């Protein structure tokens, strides 16, 4: 059993500590973790800070053109990233709408997605952008598609002893674009419902709905429909397909009925903002 505060300098050191004590908690930005400590929801005897590991810092372009966002990248940096992201611009939109400026200085993408609260802004954006999550365990590395990473309420593909080291976005295409539509009660609130939408240079659309179930929601048929046809009836049919997959909660942010009803409406707004004429084919 570990006790105290640890500051590993490499990913291997961090995962070695985790292997020693699976009860130890990783701390990235710390915002979510410390809020839970303050509320005494958790009381871990050991905390492993990830703030001193260079490998998980920063946003870079990989040799094959994919974009690698280190797990310790703050929301502020993701929101202000000036790299051409193509369809993954949806991630910039989502990051910029998380909470408020001060929380964006603290929170990180790795910490956020590891927590996997379905109300978060990253999950639907990453799924729509076809991102991959880079995971490290003791002596092992693997990549998991974002769609497979988010598995249930607060449950991800991370096995015990593993940590997120980066998020990798596909190589950006010129002419591709992405938007994130968030409906919340006030600025900075968690989403009541959200829609992330990406369009490729060829006009292929991928939409993902957030905060309407345990994981981000998408539907291949809905994507196919919208890629062919953006008329009101196509939007309605795509919206219905997504609604059918939704499993929203009743909570103070909205009733399940309302969240379901919002899906086609936010979808309409997302598609409009993608700046494709509704009703006309590419």
């Amino acid at each position, binding site marked *: 059993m570990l*006790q*105290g*505060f640890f500051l590993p300098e490499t990913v291997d050191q961090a995962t070695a500590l985790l292997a020693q004590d699976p009860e130890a908690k990783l*701390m990235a930005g*710390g*915002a979510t*973790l*410390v*809020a839970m*400590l*303050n*509320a005494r929801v958790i*009381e871990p*005897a050991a*905390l492993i*800070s990830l*703030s*001193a590991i260079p490998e998980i810092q920063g946003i870079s372009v990989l040799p094959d053109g994919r974009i690698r966002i280190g797990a310790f990248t703050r929301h*502020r940096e993701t929101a202000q990233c000036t790299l051409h992201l193509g369809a993954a611009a949806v991630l910039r939109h989502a990051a910029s709408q998380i*909470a*408020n*400026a*001060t*929380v964006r*200085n*603290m929170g990180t993408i790795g910490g956020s997605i590891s927590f996997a609260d379905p109300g978060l802004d990253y999950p639907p954006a990453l799924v729509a952008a076809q991102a991959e999550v880079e995971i490290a365990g003791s002596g092992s590395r693997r990549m998991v598609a974002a769609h497979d990473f988010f598995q249930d309420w607060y449950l991800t593909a991370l096995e015990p002893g593993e940590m997120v080291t980066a998020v990798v976005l596909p190589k950006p295409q010129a002419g591709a674009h992405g938007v994130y539509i968030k409906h919340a009660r006030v*600025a*900075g609130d968690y989403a009541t419902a959200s829609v992330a939408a990406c369009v490729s240079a060829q006009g292929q659309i991928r939409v993902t709905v957030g905060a309407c179930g345990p994981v981000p929601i998408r539907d291949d048929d809905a994507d196919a429909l919208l890629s062919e046809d953006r008329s009101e009836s196509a939007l309605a049919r795509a919206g219905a397909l997504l609604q059918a997959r939704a499993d929203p909660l009743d909570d103070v942010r909205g009733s399940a009925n309302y969240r379901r009803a919002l899906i086609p409406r936010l979808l309409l707004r997302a598609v409009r903002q993608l700046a494709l004429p509704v009703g006309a084919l590419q």
Partner: protein
Amino acid sequence: MSAPRQTLQLQVNGAEAEVRVGLHDSLLTVLRDQLQLTAAKRGCNQGVCGACTVVRDGYTVRACLSLAHGCTHADIETLEGLNQEASMQALQKAFAAESAFQCGFCAPGMLISAHALLLHNPSPDADQVRAAMSGNLCRCTGYAPIVVAVLQAAAHLRAQELAP
């Protein structure tokens, strides 16, 4: 069950500060209880209200959500340490002139956020001020005078820059 307390060296307001902290102590607890720096307030302890906002390495953070242990390699600035700064004084003057506070509980956090905004963006417009400071809650003023005060301070500081 609590872990044994540890002695840490923090950098606060340009000086070394030695504190004894538990593993789970937040920076806010340490600032207020051990260093008697009570300008940062506890309004919610969840990071929502913004009354605990301080500056860390040039960016605003929530002291209530910052682990004390995680601050040992950081430069922490609180309102007490910024009172002599020209930019903070311009903000304080403008807040007073525009009645941009009433009960004053949110004021330290507001001033910190405004100070940091002007550091990174010396010429914000009203929308940018509102977006940058939407994480600081106020229940008394209705916010409008705060926006005016920040814009006024920004204009004053820009004019000073231009003056010989």
